[in-house]
Each structure stands twice: as C-alpha cells, then as structure tokens.
C-alpha cells in the first residue's frame, strides 16, 4: 500500500476518537481513507469535515482537551494556515498526532515536496519525526500516539512524510495485528479534561507573572522526549523487530565525510554512499529521524571524528547564515566544542528531484576540497539551481 494508506491504516488501528481534517494535496489520501473507515463502520470515530485547516487544528485541540485520541493530517499551506493553533496544541499540552505530507509553500504555488512547511513551524512546540519510507511512517504513528499521550510528555507529534515521494509511493508494509495495536496502545487515559464533574479552566489569560512558567513546560516536556521515545521504541521493537532510533546511521564508523539529511532523500543518499564506498571513499550518512527535539546526543555519537559534514536542507531560511537543519547541526557542534567544517546545501525545493549521482557529486566536491586542503565553502549553497 501507499504511505498515505499505511498511515490511515495505522490511525484506524490506533482506534482514534476524533479526526478533524481538511483536504490538501498531497495528504488527501490519508483523510479519504479515514473517511471511508468511519463511513463503513470500520472505525468508531467522529470525522469532523471542517471548513479550513485553521479549524482542523482548532477542533483537534478542543477535542483533545476532552480526553479524546485525536488525529489530523495536512501539508504546505494547510500547515501554514494552522500556524497559530499549533502553538495552542503544544502549550495546552494536547497529545494530537498529525501526519504532514511535506510540500512547498506558495508562491509560486507548487504541490510538490520540500520541507518548508514544517520548518516554518519548527518552534511551535511539536515533536517532529521524519519518516524515510512507508514502513517507518506506519510504525511511527503508533509510537507517536504512545509518546504524545504519555503523562510526562503531553505534546503533539508531527509525523513527516515527503509529499509524493513518500505519500504516493507504494511499497510492501509489514503491519501489526489489531490486538497487538490495542495492547501497545490502549485507550487514552487523560488526567485533566473538560468535564462538568471537575470544572477546570483551560486556556486562561496569563500575564508576565505566570506566562513564562506555563510556556516553559513545553521545553521541560521536550527534554524528556528522547529518553521516552527510546523506551517506546524498545517496546515496539520487541513486538515487531523494527526500530529506527533518533537518527538513521549508515557507515559513519570510519567516515571522513558525513552527509546529513532528512526524509526520503536518506535512501537516495545511502545508495550514493554505497557506490562511493565501493570506490574507497570514506563517506557516511546521518539521517535526522527525530527533528524536534533535535537529537544532539545521538548526533554527537557519530560525528566526532569526521573531517567535514555536509548538511542537506530541503528548505530555505532566507537571510539566515544557514538553512534550518544546518543551523541546528552547527549549534550542536559548537556546544560540544567541535570545530568541524559544515557544508550546507539547500536542494530539491518545490519537488525538484535529486539523484544518487548528484549526492555522489556533492560528496566528492567536499572530499576533493579536503584532499586539496581547500577550505569548505561557508554559507549556504543552492544545489541544482539554474545558473
């Protein structure tokens, strides 16, 4: 099945209570399948066909505050329209799970993949996970609910799939059984929720005397995510034999140059690195699977001895010294006292494809610079842009 269908199937197996969503390419298949499940009685949930993404996230937040398990899905302009509500989801501690079929932002309007949509909301207090393929997306849905609903976390989780490259890609998916799903993910047990039997106020007005502390809760919960996700993954691994960690690692042990990327490009980059290794080039790959919180410790485990890092960003940050992932990588290195040169490439905007051969060229460019003793180019390079 396609990644979109796999996600919808996982959401059904997660026995969600409320789905509030609005159609937008390329995520629409997810909510179409979910509508079918609800209309055919295969999933006992309320599907709220809202009139905008702003309302989709608003309805999700409100539904979540009643103690329900809530899912939605969006992309691109939809995520942008949700923007102000995303902050409520995290600050009101709503364990919503959202699939994001990453797509470029207008203008010009474009329906294809890049990561600009999610990167634009990366400070909204959501846990953000990147899937590299359909299998990961399917498995991550269960883990996302488990993580989000944990009383120590209570944060919304985004599961990112590259628009079209993943959302519409068909592959064989190993599924878990409904009873395995029910055991791994029993119904949500909220501690605080909207109910007349315990009349509580949600979303109060906080002035400078309290705002900071309430807001800081999101940071505290974020700090607990890496360890909690690892525990959840361990349980899931025992059930399925599948585990993804916070970063995907390929041939980094003796790597001199390590490429960092996120999403479906990881598979392409892996193929390129395999070919380079055959030629004796010591290249490795780190794929960012958990993006928020940024997996600082996991990254440092693998980059200490490299001579250069190549960070591939599928989003721009106009005017900034680096694109989004490179900003985080550089901060990670700086805090660890590592002075490793970072080459930052922005690539593939608006769905422009990148081939394994191009990844090879990118890596070779850096390898040759190192060999020649030339400094690694600073700032942001735009790969594949017409001259």
């Amino acid at each position, binding site marked *: 099945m396609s990644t979109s269908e796999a996600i919808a199937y996982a959401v059904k197996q997660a026995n969600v209570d409320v789905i509030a969503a609005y159609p937008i390419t390329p995520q629409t298949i997810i909510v179409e399948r979910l509508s079918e499940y609800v209309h055919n009685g295969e999933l006992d949930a309320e599907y709220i066909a809202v009139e905008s993404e702003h309302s989709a996230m608003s309805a999700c937040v409100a539904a979540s505050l009643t103690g329900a398990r809530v899912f939605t899905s969006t992309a691109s302009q939809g995520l942008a329209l949700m923007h102000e509500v995303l902050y409520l989801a995290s*600050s*009101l*501690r*709503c364990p919503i799970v959202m699939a994001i079929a990453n797509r470029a932002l207008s203008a010009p309007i474009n329906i294809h993949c890049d990561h600009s949509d999610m990167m634009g909301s990366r400070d909204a207090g959501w846990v953000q996970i990147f899937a590299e393929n359909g299998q990961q997306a399917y498995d991550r849905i269960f883990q996302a609910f488990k993580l989000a609903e944990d009383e120590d976390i*209570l944060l919304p989780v985004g599961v990112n799939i590259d628009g079209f490259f993943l959302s519409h890609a068909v592959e064989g998916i190993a599924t878990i059984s409904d009873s395995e799903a029910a055991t791994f993910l029993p119904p949500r047990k909220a*501690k*605080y929720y909207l109910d007349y039997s*315990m*009349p*509580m*106020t*949600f*979303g*109060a007005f*906080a002035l400078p005397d*309290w705002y900071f*502390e*309430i807001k*800081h*809760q999101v*940071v*505290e919960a974020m*700090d607990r995510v890496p360890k909690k996700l690892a525990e959840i993954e361990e349980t899931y691994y025992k059930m399925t034999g599948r585990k993804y960690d916070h970063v995907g690692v390929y041939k980094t042990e003796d790597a001199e140059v390590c490429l960092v990327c996120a999403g479906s490009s990881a598979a392409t980059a892996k193929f390129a690195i395999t070919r380079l290794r055959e030629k004796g080039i010591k290249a490795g790959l780190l794929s960012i699977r958990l993006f928020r919180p940024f997996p600082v410790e996991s990254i440092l485990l693998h980059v200490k001895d490299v001579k250069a890092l190549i960070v591939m960003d599928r989003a721009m940050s106009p005017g900034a010294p680096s694109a989004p992932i490179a900003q985080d990588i550089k901060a990670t290195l700086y805090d660890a006292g590592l002075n490793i040169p970072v080459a930052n490439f922005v690539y593939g905007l608006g769905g422009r494809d990148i081939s394994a051969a191009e990844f090879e060229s990118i890596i070779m460019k850096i390898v040759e610079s190192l060999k020649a003793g030339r400094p690694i180019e600073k700032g942001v390079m735009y790969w594949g842009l017409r001259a």
Partner: protein
Amino acid sequence: MASVKTTTLPGGIINRPGSTIDYKTGTWRVKRPVVNLDKCIGCLICWIYCPEPAIIKRDDGKIDFDYDYCKGCGICSLECPTKAIRIVEE
C-alpha cells in the same frame, strides 16, 4: 540545561472554579449602593442585573450587598422598581 520544576498544572489549567473570589473588586468602588430595607420588596431585579454578582438574598427575602465585590456601578439603584437603593460616596 537542567529543567526547572514548576508548580503549574499542564498547560496552565486552573482547577479552582470560581477562584476570582480571591480578588476583592470592592476596592475599585468609589460610590456604594445602600439598600433601604423598608422599601425593598425582595423582587431581585437588582440581582438579575448585577454584573458581578455582588447582591445576596437575605433569609427574609430582601437583599444585601457583598461589598467585597461590588464595583459600585449603580445599575441596581437605577433599576430598582421601588427606589430602595441609593448611591452614596464611599
């Protein structure tokens, strides 16, 4: 950086319904309503129009003011059908 422990409930939930009673808005008042119990017929019209609410029904059915919260708007005085409430300077 180590996380700071806070005493707030998740998301800043308030679990003390009606807790604004901790704050005495009576201090805002510059004029106070005074009821003439001889004229009060206990119709509670003042009470239904009070924005706070800061009017209480006494055991005899007549009204009294909760000066801890009354902001002194004077609606009760204007609306009283028997003119039983007058407004005086604080």
